[in-house]
């Protein structure tokens, strides 16, 4: 009996072209979304409702930036330069969600990113844990341990806000905006990156099956928070609106991070201080 899996890939070169491209795009999408999500958490360090939640935002920001760093670095194996990816791309080359394009104005909107969108990213990372693409194996464990607490933070705050009618309404409005983009982030059901990666054993699920994993995780929390209607609406309604979907960039609309966001995530202001 051999412990070596014959179908495993030790480097990106061993993947077929379409699978390599789909995996690179998935890793870049995860990295870009985490880089900007980290900034969104960071923007609430001082404005969060309590000192403790400000500290939690600071910790989640650091976690996301760390995850982004690790994910950008994985793209070296695909012939991409992490330095260029991190510091030298225009907005239209970012594979980031429309949910992250500009700063979040209200706390419930941050919670929507925290509970819904962050969880979507985690579902995809989990699906890479036992990937046939071996270089990703050692990158996911710590990341997912940290994400457990991000989800609990979102859940704890959803429960807290749902204690009052005003809180529940604010939560529902914010979550309603983020449900569609989070569900769509996994991609279309028909032939696409999800199917390719699953067939190659690189990712554990297709777009549809990962979407279902996400729903199974998020819907019970929505129900706990008294948002059963919202949960049922999205669970029963498999018909997502794909009219403005950009499959290559895994986002709705042709925009990208706004100018201020872009300058900050790329580190434009301090570019002259880059030493390497």
């Amino acid at each position, binding site marked *: 009996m051999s412990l070596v899996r014959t179908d495993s890939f030790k480097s990106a070169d061993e993947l077929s072209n379409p699978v390599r491209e789909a995996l690179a795009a998935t890793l870049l999408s995860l990295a870009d979304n985490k880089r900007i999500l980290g900034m969104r958490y960071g923007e609430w360090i001082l404005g969060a409702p309590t000192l403790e*939640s400000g*500290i939690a935002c600071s*910790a989640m920001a650091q976690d996301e930036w760390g995850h982004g760093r690790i994910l950008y670095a994985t793209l070296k194996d695909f012939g991409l330069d992490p330095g260029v990816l991190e510091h030298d791309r225009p907005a239209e080359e970012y594979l980031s969600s429309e949910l992250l394009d500009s700063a979040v104005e209200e706390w419930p909107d941050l919670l929507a990113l925290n509970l819904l969108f962050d969880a979507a990213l985690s579902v995809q990372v989990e699906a890479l844990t036992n990937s046939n693409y071996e270089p990703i194996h050692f990158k996911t464990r710590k990341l997912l341990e940290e994400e457990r*607490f991000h989800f609990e933070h979102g859940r704890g705050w959803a429960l807290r806000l749902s204690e009052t009618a005003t809180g529940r309404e604010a939560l529902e409005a914010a979550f309603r905006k983020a449900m569609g983009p989070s569900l769509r982030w996994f991609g279309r059901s028909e032939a696409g990156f999800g199917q390719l990666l699953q067939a190659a054993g690189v990712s554990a699920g297709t777009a549809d099956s990962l979407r279902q994993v996400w729903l199974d995780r998020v819907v019970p929390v929505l129900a706990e928070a008294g948002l059963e209607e919202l949960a049922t609406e999205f669970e029963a309604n498999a018909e997502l609106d794909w009219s403005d979907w950009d499959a290559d960039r895994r986002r709705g609309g042709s925009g990208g991070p706004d100018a201020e966001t872009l300058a900050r995530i790329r580190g434009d202001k301090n570019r002259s201080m880059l030493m390497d």
Partner: protein
Amino acid sequence: MGHLSGERLYEIFARQKRADRLEHIGTVSAPNPELARVYAWKTYDEATWFEMVVAPRDAFCAVNRDEVPFTLHPVETV
């Protein structure tokens, strides 16, 4: 630590190794146990803890003294 209405104080205990005793390391204010766990883990992250637990301060019973536990001044009530 902020103690808003609807929030409780949670006492945090942790140990770095299985062989260690749980030690009281701090306090957080939180509206529910879910957030108490997150706040505790994210606030007191100076060590790699083998185990961390939280309990609401008001769950502790005084044994030999009359005042409630975790008070610095005997007259203070939380």
